[in-house]
């Protein structure tokens, strides 16, 4: 347990200011004591109440506190624990504070029961108001910290996505192939450059747009596969099948890209003789309730699941596709991966239409 003295100090300064205000009120009720004496009394009550609450909350387990966490200290206790702590603080302040004030200013306790009641009401109201103020501020600070964390996570995820899509090894190998093609087959080099151009443009823009037609998604997959087939030569064969009726269907941009990349990187690239990728989209009715849905299948004849060496960022692509499906389609969007009888992998994406 580590006490945050700087935040405690800040709180105490606010308590002092608050006590000065309360003292104005009490001076109006009991004009027989000077303002300075009233401030003294208010400070005695306020200091005791504050210290009980400020340091008492360290006794409450961190799990029951508002988002404290590293660097932000122990938050405000939640629920009944917070209420109980406030009540104990106010009671201590009321019982001990007046005594301390009497002792400091050498007064004998001659106050009437009516005075006691008023002083109790003032202590309770002031204590509750101050506690509520600190509680609300602590909650707001925790919320702001939470939002900042969420924003940073989102930014990191986007950066990571871009890094996986613009994998340096893929880029430099493509450029090396391009350089080789320029001298031996210029028309094919131009074609390859166009594919690379499209691929880069969409990849860089994908983090901004929210949807594009399925036909464009398939065109971008074709760009990627054409690039890869220049590199892999006869080791890569592919076929794309998109029914005309589904061409305009909006989908999140590059939703399928990571799956096709996985098929190449973990399926076909490690396989000496290479293989084939087939991608197709179709409309169907869900078996369970007959609701219409879109099914997209990415089938490869690669080395299959779980046999390839695990690489850095492994599983990131799949996780990312699942998260995007969940964000856009909720529980009705899904991705399943299965091993095929032929030894390859079948990735199936399903979402409602």
């Amino acid at each position: 347990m580590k006490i945050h003295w700087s935040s405690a100090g800040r709180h105490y300064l606010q308590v002092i200011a608050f006590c000065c205000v309360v003292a104005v009120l009490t001076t109006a009720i009991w004009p027989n004591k000077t303002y300075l004496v009233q401030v003294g009394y208010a400070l005695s009550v306020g200091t005791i109440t504050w210290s009980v609450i400020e340091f008492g909350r360290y006794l409450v387990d961190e799990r029951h506190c508002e988002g404290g966490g590293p660097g932000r200290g122990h938050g405000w206790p939640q629920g009944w624990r917070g209420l109980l702590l406030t009540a104990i603080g106010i009671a201590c302040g009321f019982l001990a504070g007046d005594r301390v004030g009497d002792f400091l200013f050498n007064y004998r306790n001659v106050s009437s029961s009516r005075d006691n009641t008023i002083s109790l009401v003032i202590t309770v109201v002031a204590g509750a108001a101050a506690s509520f103020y600190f509680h609300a501020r602590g909650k707001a600070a925790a919320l702001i910290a939470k939002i900042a964390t969420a924003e940073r996570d989102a930014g990191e995820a986007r950066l990571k996505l871009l890094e996986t899509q613009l994998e340096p090894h893929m880029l430099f190998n493509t450029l090396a192939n391009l350089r080789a093609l320029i001298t031996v087959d210029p028309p094919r080099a131009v074609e390859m450059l166009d594919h690379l151009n499209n691929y880069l443009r969409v990849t860089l823009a994908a983090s901004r747009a929210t949807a594009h037609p399925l036909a464009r998604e398939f065109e971008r997959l074709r760009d990627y596969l054409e690039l890869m087939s220049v590199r892999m030569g006869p080791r890569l064969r592919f076929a794309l099948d998109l029914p005309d009726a589904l061409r305009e269907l909006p989908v999140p941009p590059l939703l399928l890209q990571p799956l096709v990349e996985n098929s190449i990187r973990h399926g076909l690239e490690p396989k000496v003789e290479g293989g084939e990728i087939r991608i197709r989209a179709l409309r169907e009715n869900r078996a369970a309730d007959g609701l219409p849905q879109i099914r997209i299948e990415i089938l490869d004849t690669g080395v299959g699941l779980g046999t390839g060496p695990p690489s850095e960022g492994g599983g990131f692509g799949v996780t990312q596709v699942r998260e995007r499906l969940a964000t856009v389609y909720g529980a009705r969007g899904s991705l399943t991966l299965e091993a095929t009888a032929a030894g390859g992998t079948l990735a199936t994406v399903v979402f409602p239409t």
Partner: protein
Amino acid sequence: MKATALIAEDEPLLAQALRAELAAAWPDLEIIASVGDGASAVREALQRLPQVLFLDIRMPGQDGLGAAAELADTWPADEAPMPQLVFVTAYDEYAARAFETQAIDYVLKPVQPERLRKTVARLQQALAAQAPAAAAEPAALERTLAQWRQLLAGAAAAPAPNGGPLRFIAASEAGGATVRMVPVDDVLYFEAADKYVRVLTAGHEYLIRTPLKQLLPQLDPDIFWQVHRAVVVRSSAIEAVHRDETGRQHLSLRGRDDRIPVSRLYAHLFRAM
């Protein structure tokens, strides 16, 4: 001077480009084989015994480093001198950095004529320095092996993981569904099998999926020695080193009856003091 070379590169255009650049930079070099994967590279190299190997690092099946490590063991050093190695890579931060620091030769893709000429000049020099009888000279072989060892160790090293040496290994029992926490202190040796790494203690055998290459940086190098491309052994468990009539070495261990092969690359660890 006439020389022979093998190119191992899985991308056909790049293999073709390298061949063309080599033809310009070294007209006397004869490319006696061009293959697309590590296993074929080893097979062809053993059959044709070229003087120079151009190995792509990333290839399907066995990669370039794996092919080199296998050749280090299987190359018939009494028939031909160990070949000169040149690695070819498009982008491989770790490998490139390792090569840079050890002045080992590598060529970046796309291959640039200027850079390739330097490599060719160095190769020609190295080949010229090889006396015809060098194959039989143990000191020369030892020098080459030391260079290969350094090269493979440097290039294969994964980035060091955070935290100290591994203390426990979560491994499944052979054929079982239970995952056991095996204390590293109990492990006698690790052996890479097909898709797994076998973890062997005095009485048991476990399997893990983490490749040896990734496991190695997490082990204390004073305690665990790599003695073969597929075996890392607890040094204090080694009982004796045996040599058969072909000059091959193997180890016997305290606590297990297995014979552990020692690669030619690591034989220097067991030379009598």
